[in-house]
């Protein structure tokens, strides 16, 4: 009878709202939401590792940047068409995640955070070092003509919004499904008690590596999409800030929840958007937000909701 569970209704409801928003929001906010959805993909990728597996990476910007540069460099230098170029970006991120995971997952806890941070910094410096191709900090622009999917110009507002929407929906539904599957449950088991998970016979090392690969690949999707939809590729996206942002979004929205990352991105985006009307030191707002969240709302918005009222929230 009741074929749709509450979480499924919630997830499709969120997607329905995002479609409606396109028709009711003024132009500026439609643009904002295209960006928000792409960044939410990144946040969801981060959330799989941090929220569900309990591994805090401080170097996710390297996966975002791998997706972005994988797409941007192949499309610019080899003239690869859009779809293969985006795929190259995603594969680059997944390959990097495999390599980094193989090395970094030998460590745990604090060392893992620092090691991922180091790898990301190496990646950032490599981008700067090969400035001849990557144009370093200055970055480069992907031409409008190259951002064309089967004759649809992805630079128009509508196409941009719905490309972001489709990719967001795919990642959102896939990740929500993934964390409900045995694979996701095992990741949560690792988060809750790694020793016990190992004792129960799960191959913890392999599971963690897969979590990192999927997380890196999804972050790569976000990076490639960002480059594709907004046409700019620069080293600043590989810098430490871009590793901290997803942490901020996920913590704010609620780590280990399916809709938390999206809520966190929306909240932070508008917080910074509105505050930048008063001050240009928006990082001060971000910093205060981080401190206040850790002190007073360690579960984030959705996490607190789940704890207090809606215990069914996925």
């Amino acid at each position: 009878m009741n074929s749709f569970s509450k979480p499924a209704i919630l997830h499709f409801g969120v997607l329905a709202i995002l479609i409606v928003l396109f028709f009711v929001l003024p132009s500026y906010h439609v643009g904002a939401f295209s960006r928000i959805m792409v960044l939410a993909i990144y946040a969801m990728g981060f959330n799989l590792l941090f929220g569900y597996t309990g591994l805090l990476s401080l170097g996710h910007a390297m996966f975002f940047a791998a997706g972005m540069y994988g797409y941007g460099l192949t499309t610019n230098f080899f003239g690869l068409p859009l779809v293969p170029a985006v795929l190259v970006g995603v594969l680059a991120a997944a390959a990097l995640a495999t390599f980094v995971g193989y090395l970094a997952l030998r460590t745990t806890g604090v060392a893992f955070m620092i090691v991922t941070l180091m790898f990301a910094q190496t990646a950032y410096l490599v981008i700067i070092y090969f400035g001849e191709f990557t144009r370093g900090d200055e970055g480069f622009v992907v031409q409008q003509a190259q951002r064309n999917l089967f004759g649809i110009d992805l630079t128009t507002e509508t196409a941009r919004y719905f490309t972001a929407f489709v990719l967001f929906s795919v990642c959102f539904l896939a990740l929500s499904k993934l964390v409900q599957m045995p694979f996701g449950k095992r990741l949560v088991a690792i988060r809750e008690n790694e020793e016990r998970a190992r004792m129960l016979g799960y191959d913890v090392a392999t599971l963690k590596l897969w979590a990192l690969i999927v997380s890196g690949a999804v972050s790569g999707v976000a990076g490639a999409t960002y480059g594709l939809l907004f046409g700019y590729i620069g080293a600043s996206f590989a810098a430490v800030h871009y590793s901290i942002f997803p942490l901020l979004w996920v913590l704010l929205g609620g780590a280990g929840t399916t809709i938390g990352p999206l809520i966190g991105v929306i909240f932070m985006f508008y917080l910074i958007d509105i505050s930048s009307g008063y001050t240009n030191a928006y990082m001060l707002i971000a910093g205060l937000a981080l401190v206040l969240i850790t002190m007073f709302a360690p579960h984030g918005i959705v996490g607190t909701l789940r704890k207090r009222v809606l215990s069914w929230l996925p």
Partner: protein
Amino acid sequence: MEFGPHLMLASLEGAVTSSILVLTAMGLSIVFGVMRVVNVAHGEFFMLGAIFAWAVSTTLGGHPAIGFAAALIIAPIFVGCIAATADRLILRRINYDVDRTIVATIGVLYIIQQSTLMLYGPEARPVEPPFNTRISLPWFEFGENGFEMFWPWGLSITSYKLFVIFAAAFVLFVLWGVLTRTKFGLIMRATQQDRDTAQAFGVPVGKVYSWVFGLGAGLAAFGAVLVVPIQQAHYLMGGDPLLLAFIVVIIGGLGSLPGTVIAALLIGMSDGLISVFFSPTLAKIIATFLVAMVLVFRPQGLMGKN
């Protein structure tokens, strides 16, 4: 004969880098060792030290040495107090939980950085060194005409840079004395060994934590005051020392003080050598990558315990 003198100069430059690095990394290492807190805001305390050094030396005026000497004392104390306040206000309330302290200190990083930008501005400002005579380096070689000394040779280092090396060594010596010979050091090591037992024996653990956090930040600030006459004070200058200090602390073995010193020398020297002979960016890439390699072969670091 071309290579030797350059190598010597590069090693001296490396020793200067090592000196600053050893102070910064020591602060990070002590805080981690005693409190189990990874202080991501450490680089910003370094930056604050440099900014205060500029502020103190420009307010005092007079001979550069007066301002510099005052900064050397005032800046670390100021920064230490700010850090201790942050510990009381934030870290203590989240109970030094590992993940949450990292996030909170990232927040502190941005708050300090942006506040500095708003109050101090985006410019890089110099601090005049107290003394800065150029000292030509002699070079000895056993050549055709027997033992020869070449001097002056064209390569030189400033007296200030030599002072930095000695000042860092001196501070390190004092720190070692404090940790091994004083009651504060004893209490600190007791807290490090076993927090609960120490508390049961009447050690005011909360106070010790604030002191240690302040001491760690103060060490970074001291290193920064030493560095401003060489490198100007800027609100974004905390990033590089933070990363290098992280590298040093990991390679040395988390929380191991002798390991920290050895690793700082290693990283500082190699940074100096590679920067002189290749490029600074490449030096950083190699240093960062070195961490990964150390972790592959020795996950616990050079001197860490398993």
